[in-house]
């Protein structure tokens, strides 16, 4: 585990950033979460999570291209940093370890 905990939602957003790569911006992350996890998220929650992650150094961001659908406004693309990747990995690992201890779910490996 890293020095600071990540909240469940932050962890989720961080994972999405890692997954979506150059498409990792606020609105899209939100809609992907909605599609994949069937979970309603507000845009503000996503943005705040992203900013917090950036504060902690787990992601970095850059302004990207503007499109007509966005009324000509640019989007901010987030990319996961190595620190972020490390945190993510260790969190998933830790979770898996605890998971293995649950008697009902004998997951091998």
């Amino acid at each position, binding site marked *: 585990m890293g020095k600071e905990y990540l909240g469940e939602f932050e962890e989720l957003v961080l994972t999405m950033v890692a997954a979506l790569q150059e498409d990792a911006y606020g609105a899209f992350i939100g809609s992907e979460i909605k599609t994949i996890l069937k979970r309603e998220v507000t845009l*503000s*929650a996503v*943005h*705040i999570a992203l900013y917090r992650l950036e504060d902690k150094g787990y992601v970095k961001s850059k302004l990207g291209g503007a499109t007509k*659908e966005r*009324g000509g*406004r640019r989007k*901010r693309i987030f990319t996961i940093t190595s620190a972020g990747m490390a945190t993510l990995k260790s969190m998933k690992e830790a979770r898996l370890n605890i998971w293995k201890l649950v008697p009902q779910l004998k997951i091998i490996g």
Partner: protein
Amino acid sequence: MNNENPITHPESALRILSWFCPRDMYEEIEGDLIQNYYEDARLLGAKKARQRMIWSAIRFCRPGILLRNSFSLQINKIDVLIHHLRLAIRIFLKDKFFSTLNVLGLSLGIAVSIVLFLILQYDLKYDQHYPNHERIYRLGAHVKAEGIDERTARSNRLLGEVLKEELPEVESVTRINILNRQGGLPVTTEVNGKELMFDEPSVFRTDSNYFKVFQHEFIAGDMNTCFKKPDEVVITASMAKRIFGDVEALGRTVRIGYYKQADKIWTISGVIKDFPENTHLKFNIIESGLEINDPPFHPNVDSINSEAFWDTQVYLYVLMSPAYTSDDFLNKWQAIDAKYFKPYGDKMAATYTPILQPLDDIHFHSDLQQDQPVGNMIYLYAFIGIGIFIVLLACINYMNLSTAKSSRRAPEIGMKKALGSGKQSLIISFLGESVLLSLISLMIAIVIVVLVLDTSSFNALVDRTLTFSLLSWPQLIMGVITITLGIGILSGLYPSLYLPAIPTISALKGTYRSGNSSHAFRKVLITVQFVISMLVIVCTIFMHNQLDFMRNKDMGYKKENIIVVKVMPTIQDHMPAIKDQFLNNPRIKSVGLSRSVLGWSSSFISGRDVLLTDSKEGVRQNTFNILEIDEDYFKTMNIQLIKGREFKPGLENDREGVFIVNQTASKLMGWSDDPIGKSLRTSKGEAIGEVVGLVKDFNYSSLHNAIEPLLLIKMPFVRGYVHIKVAGDHLPETIEHIRKTLTSFSSKFPFEYFFFDDRFNEQYQADDKQYKLISALSYVCIFISLLGLLGLAAFTATQRTKEIGIRKILGANVTKIIILLSKDVLILVLVSSLLVIPLSYWAIHEWLQNFAYQVSLDYLIYFLVTIVALFFVFLTILLQSYKTARSNPVDALKYE
């Protein structure tokens, strides 16, 4: 995706966003919102999409975004504050029991403060609704001479003219006479062809300058012209409605008074808006024409009749010019005194000192004779005192509970300090907790206040109309917030200084126990609580005793089973026949008349006058109270005649020059106990009569006053009230007989009657109401104290769980343990009760100064109150400790 977008996104959402979004992030968030909008519009339709966009924008208004705005310094402070707020809420919820106690106590404290604040507002704003009220004064006088020491609210009728002549600062003067000192005057008028007659309790007479001094709002008629013609009256709006309903009152005529007075026809020349409640001068009808009886006024020294100016007849109000001070007045008065008063004063060795009262002061600070009923400052001080007590109690509760729980919070505090919290920041966080609690209590308190004012009979209890309307007085909002913050900070002061000072290491180790010094201070606090509560209870009980005493004391005349009927003009001439008919009824024992009804209101005498007598030693003079009665009054009221004779029956007999005096009068005039045959005269020298009877002293005035010289004269014509002494049984039949008799002579007036003893207590009504209010407050005091006690007992029990466990193992039984736990507090109760004795003694005696007749205090009360207090304390501790004392000591010691 179709790039044709028929409906564009709402700008309003973006505008909302711009209010709080930091510039750095603005663009991307905008873009996201717009993108989502079009997506939603495609799936759900434009309308839904708009809503969602606006909602999403609003949702961005949260600390995570707001604080990213570069406020530089402010970022830190707000963050810290919010953190503390969260912490405070968490702590509040952790200990729901204690928190509830605290909140309850604080809410009551704040609620009481708010109500008292409202009462203060109301009382101190008396008479302030008149424009120019700061410039209006009433002129009274302090007259001293042999046998006379009087502070009166009145002045001579010409004094106003004198002031205008001699003092240029005087803008206007007006005089008022109150015409209906006893009950009301009959008013007759014609409406729609029907003649209406009713009793009007409030009629004044004034001169044409009245509206120059007291500016009223006129609904009909005009301020400047309403008294230009003779025989005009102005009435209030509610009076107009009462008489004429919806018909226009202006221009109609009324007749007012008895006999010849009722022949005069008055024209209504104005209708004014009703008075607000808090004013000392309230009338329903005001007549013009006071100046008619003015003697001619010449400021020429030779023709000044100095003696006349000493005769005080009217209430004189003066409107001064803006730049004026009362010191100027007193300086200039010397000249006026020399010119108008001294000539006669020197002759009679008398002094006349003017008393100039600002209008705003009259209601509360006036202690003058012949005055309108006034409010009593003592009660106001008492309310404020008790209010402060209650707030103190609530604060002490909070302080006690917070510090008592300190051992629980020690680890948390130690942790905070170890992690680097400065002492200052800790202090602020604790203060913040108490202020937060205070604010929560404020909301509850407001609910309490509104409930009490709107739904209970509280307003009737205090005789005022109080409303909690924040909008009408900005001062109320200020006052309420100040009170709340004040209470919050006051209660939080001790804990916030005490808690951060807990030694860090023992706190972290978990071995911290509250030290002896904190114990001592807490004991002091509890003692203060007990003292306050017991003091309030004892004083309330004593007040009750005094009021009871006054209600039941023998006044020297009969109070029960006397029916009183007012004499209306229609039956005046038939009185002898009416009396005969009454006496035909075997249940009617006696019928007597008096111009006034004793004990009914503060002005129940017919007048006061200075009378003199000549004897070998010289002249003696005194101020007499005058009562007008008929020949049967003594018999009806069981008043005892000691010497001489009563008045003779028949209107022609004893009409003039025949007096009966009471023992006090007789003594003070130097006649000791035989005044029969002595004569009395006025200061001018005219002999006005001789004494034919001596009556035993009776309390014709309320027990506030000692018995003063009384002069009884026979009423020259029938007026006032018929007193009917009846047998105690079959009252409905007797009343029916009275009604039948009266209506057989005239049915113009509705038959109204009352029982003497019912009205009798009205003179103590003011005292009674104040008493009720104070006793209500004392209940609040007791309640809050009990809350504090409960909390402390609960806490102590849990604290000493281990100790109790050990004692049980060592063999103590439940009772012994409980006694042990309560010993400390019981001693405090005893100490408090000792302290209460001198305090309450002083307080009660101050209050009793109001009364010439005082009940003898029953000191057993102290004993009783102490016992009851001890009992309650014991019971409380018992309830809390019982569980612990009975529990298995193993459980208690398990957590070692």
